[in-house]
């Protein structure tokens, strides 16, 4: 149905925005934020296809994804906290010691 296409596009746009943000931003928290946005893009996609197939599996899968996103949030933010304590900055470039 034409509605599904719209949702898929929204999901794709969200994913793309998240990806671009992940690749270009330097602030650790913003990088993480972008990964969350990527997750949400995939959630939207899953829910859209659930509607398309008239099946609840996709929505269940979306719930799984939300849980995973939450867990990942916990882990990643913990890491970010430790990294911040080490270098007193949230700049990702501070961690480029393994250069060349």
């Amino acid at each position, binding site marked *: 149905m034409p509605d599904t296409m719209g949702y898929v596009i929204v999901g794709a746009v969200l994913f793309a925005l998240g*990806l671009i943000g*992940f*690749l*270009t931003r*330097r602030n650790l928290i913003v*990088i993480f934020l972008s990964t969350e946005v990527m997750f949400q893009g995939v959630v939207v996609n899953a829910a859209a296809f659930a509607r398309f197939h008239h099946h609840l599996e996709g929505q269940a899968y979306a719930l799984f994804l939300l849980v995973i996103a939450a867990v990942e949030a916990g882990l990643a933010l913990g890491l970010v906290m430790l990294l911040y304590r080490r270098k007193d900055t949230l700049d*990702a*470039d501070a*961690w*480029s*010691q*393994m*250069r*060349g």
Partner: protein
Amino acid sequence: MSVETLKLCSLVVLLAPLVGAILAGAFGQVLRGRTHWPAIFGVGAAFTAAVYILIYVFNTPAASTGISIPIYDWITNGTGSSFKIEFLIDPLTAVMLAIVTGISLLVVIYSRDYMREHGHPERGYERFFAFLALFVFSMCALVLCGNFLLLYLGWEAVGLCSYLLIGFYYGRPAAAAAAKKAFLVNRVGDSGFGLGILLIYLNFQTLDYKFVFALVDQGLIASGEPVSPALMTTIALLLLCGACGKSAQLPLHVWLPDAMEGPSPVSALIHAATMVTAGVYMVARCGAIFSASETAMTIVAVIGAVTALFAATIALVQTDMKRILAYSTISQLGYMFLALGVYAADSAIFHLFTHAFFKALLFLGAGSAMHAMGGVIDVRHFSGLRRALPWTYATLVIGSLALAGFPMFSGFFSKDEIIHHALAAHPVLGGMALLTAALTAFYTFRMVFLAFHGSTRVPEGVHPHESGGWMLAPLCVLSIGAVAAGYVGVEATGRTFHHFLSPVFASTFAAAHPFEAGSHATFWSAYGLMIVSGALSIAAIAAAYLVYVRQPWIPGLIKASAMGVYRLLWGKYHVDALYDLSVVRPARQTGRICVGIDDYVVDGLLWVITALPRGIAYLLRVMQSGLLQGYALSMVAGIVVLLLLAL
């Protein structure tokens, strides 16, 4: 006496000195100045047993062909059997054992006083007697052995004891260097010797004397094929390598003069009477192998004659008493080799026998003088000692007369025989032998006159006094031997010595080259040579007396007028320098080249081989930017590629 007793006696001969050595070594710190007793008892027991063996062999006709006594299996040789520790007792063994243990006993007794300064034992006194007893053990092992492997063991073991004893005063760099030189030059000879032994095993499949000699006598190798003369010559020459090394013949003679750095008893025992005669003994023992090859015998004779003359000329100008005697030993060993080479093995052993007495006597006498002179032995620094050391002088003169071949002394008879056989074989050899005899008499008495005659002068602060009883008694015993030992081998006593030994050489030397015995057609052919050589000896002694006592300005004149010759002789023909330049230095240089190859070529090759991974790593290193987003970008790119491939 039965074979069992014989076995017991031979074990005593072998092991008593070893036990003495171990006791002296283990309890030396406790015994201190009494450490000579274990050595004396050990060597004394060995001497007693050796005398028993001699009497047994003398009285038992069966022993004349050799009694084999196996002891135990030593090394398995991969063919199901083993190389054994076994002894072979025959007349040659018995004679050698008696000589070795007898002279050793006298030297050990002598050392009790020699190794003391003002009555107190020197530093290392215990070590000395332990090593000396160990040497007697090794030499007896060498003589008693019944197969080539045990011979090699004894051979190297005496080399070891020589190393330990030459380097006794290890604080002196010269002594340590001399010890190392002796061991290494002997090693060079020993590797040739080892190759000869391996070749024997390869062809005869056994190292047992009896079997090898039996096969050689038949002219066959183990598989039944006839022996090729080239093979026998090769084996004989390889064995000769070892003999030249051990007996200090050309070209491996360079270690013996340097070995005089050791104490005088060591020089007397090891480097005059026993160890250096091991080569002669070995050639005599392996008569079957040597006499099967005419080439080898010729080479033996030539080496003997040349060495004898060579060493005698060097001894003419040396001023260190012990070095004169060392060169004289080399020269006399040359005589023995000459005798062996002209198929007169019994004469060689006879000369070995008499030489042991008078040479040991000379060295011990020189040691006595050295002891009195506070360690100085260079005749330029003292003279006129006969007044201060009458006994030493007397015994030394007796020994010198024997060495010089003065008529009626032991050396006269044994040397005369050798010259006789040499002349019969080839006039050149005989001529060289005669010339050497004259030179021998001359330089021996040059030494005596320089040291003991003339005005009395001694080094600074030295008060010479005659040596004590412990040193003089052996000197007296040896003097008696130097005079009388020759009489066991003369016509008047029925040539007991030679007849005793004849069964050993009957099938080998004598068979190959039988002499016309008893053809004393004229007075001149029987006794002519004796008169000639006797006269030569007396003339040489008189000449030495004239030149060094009466008209002492003559030597200086000769030296000035023949400076080139003098320098050549003083530098011992520059053989040491020659070896250093041609062997030692190139070898060290090769060593440096090897290290260079290791560092640059081999490691360089490794560097080149590892350059490939290193290069790739260098290229790929760029990917490790350290930037978080860079990694993320490559992850995304990878996913894109996978998706494209999948779809």
